């Protein structure tokens, strides 16, 4: 089975459909999402300038494309990139929140991927928890490995991306504990969600490492997460012809 029309596919990994969570929980996550995205709209301005804005657009498109590519993780299960850490390291966490929000909104409204009433939940889990958990782990690792310079940024991003996936899964479990509509033993749910999403996180880490690595290799000056690491290097004169 390799196309997207298998009836069982109602959504993608970590895309919560309508009906999993009760109305109060959905309203609460929608409020969190509105507040988070609102804050991101004002803060992202600091991260975006004429140079980085086009990269931010590209990052959103890449996350959308990569989320279509479910990879098998064994036992008849698949996963796909969440992309929060990848986006945060490349263009900054506030801008990453906006990138993921655009992707999730288009997926829900156009492709019936992720519920409409669950859009706030999905933004909370992927555009807020996924992005910020990954970014904070990345910043922590970068502090430890600062002397190694920009070369280690892709590896640090990969590790942070791995951690971000089970973290987002844990956040879903917490929401389910509060507002899940079907009664499920919480211990079992937590173990299954975190277990499978740790395996999916390995794929997340590898894709993030490769994607961040490709930009670090070509234009390290554009990578938000490498700032400060680059300033320690001597300036070099570039003879660039504007396109």
């Amino acid at each position, binding site marked *: 089975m390799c196309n997207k029309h298998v009836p069982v596919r109602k959504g993608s990994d970590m895309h919560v459909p309508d009906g999993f969570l009760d109305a109060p929980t959905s309203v609460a996550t929608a409020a969190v999402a509105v507040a988070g995205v609102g804050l991101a709209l004002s803060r992202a*301005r600091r991260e975006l300038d*004429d140079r980085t804005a086009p990269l931010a657009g590209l990052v959103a498109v890449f996350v959308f494309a990569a989320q*279509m590519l479910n*990879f098998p993780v064994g036992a008849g299960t698949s996963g796909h990139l969440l992309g929060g850490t990848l986006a945060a390291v490349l263009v900054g966490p506030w801008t990453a929140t906006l990138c993921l929000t655009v992707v999730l909104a288009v997926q829900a409204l156009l492709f019936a991927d992720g519920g409409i009433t669950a859009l706030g939940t999905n933004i909370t889990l992927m555009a807020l928890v996924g992005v910020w958990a990954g970014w904070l782990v990345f910043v922590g690792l970068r502090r430890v490995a600062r002397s190694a310079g920009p070369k280690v940024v892709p590896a640090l991003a990969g590790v942070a991306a791995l951690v971000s996936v089970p973290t987002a899964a844990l956040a879903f479990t917490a929401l389910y504990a509060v507002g899940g509509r079907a009664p499920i033993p919480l211990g079992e749910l937590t173990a299954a969600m975190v277990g499978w999403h740790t395996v999916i996180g390995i794929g997340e880490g590898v894709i993030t490492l490769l994607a961040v690595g490709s930009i670090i290799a070509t234009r390290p000056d554009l990578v938000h997460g490498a700032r400060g690491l680059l300033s320690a290097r001597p300036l070099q004169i570039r003879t660039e012809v504007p396109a």
Partner: protein
Amino acid sequence: MTTAPRQPITTPRLVVAGLVVCVVLAAIVSFWASGHPDGLEFVAEKLGFIDSAGEHATGDSPLADYGVAGIDNARLSGGLAGLIGVVVVAAVAFGLMHLLRRRGTTDDQD
């Protein structure tokens, strides 16, 4: 293939190259994506809460579930849906980032 290693690729070229990669992934490679239930679906099926998922409000969208309604060929239908998705996300994301950006650059280049 550029031969000058110290000559960094310009931002517009990088973005265009990246977009080409995205189109290839969304419109072509996506055909081979795994159709297995994903992590959340799998857990929901195993633990028995998959049925609490309601009908999707945009489930009858002509692009629902990454296919174009009326096109029977799975490769064409899914590929076209992926391409449309890339165009829509690009339009919204590039537009939004362009509106939000600070004018000029903090450091030069380009």
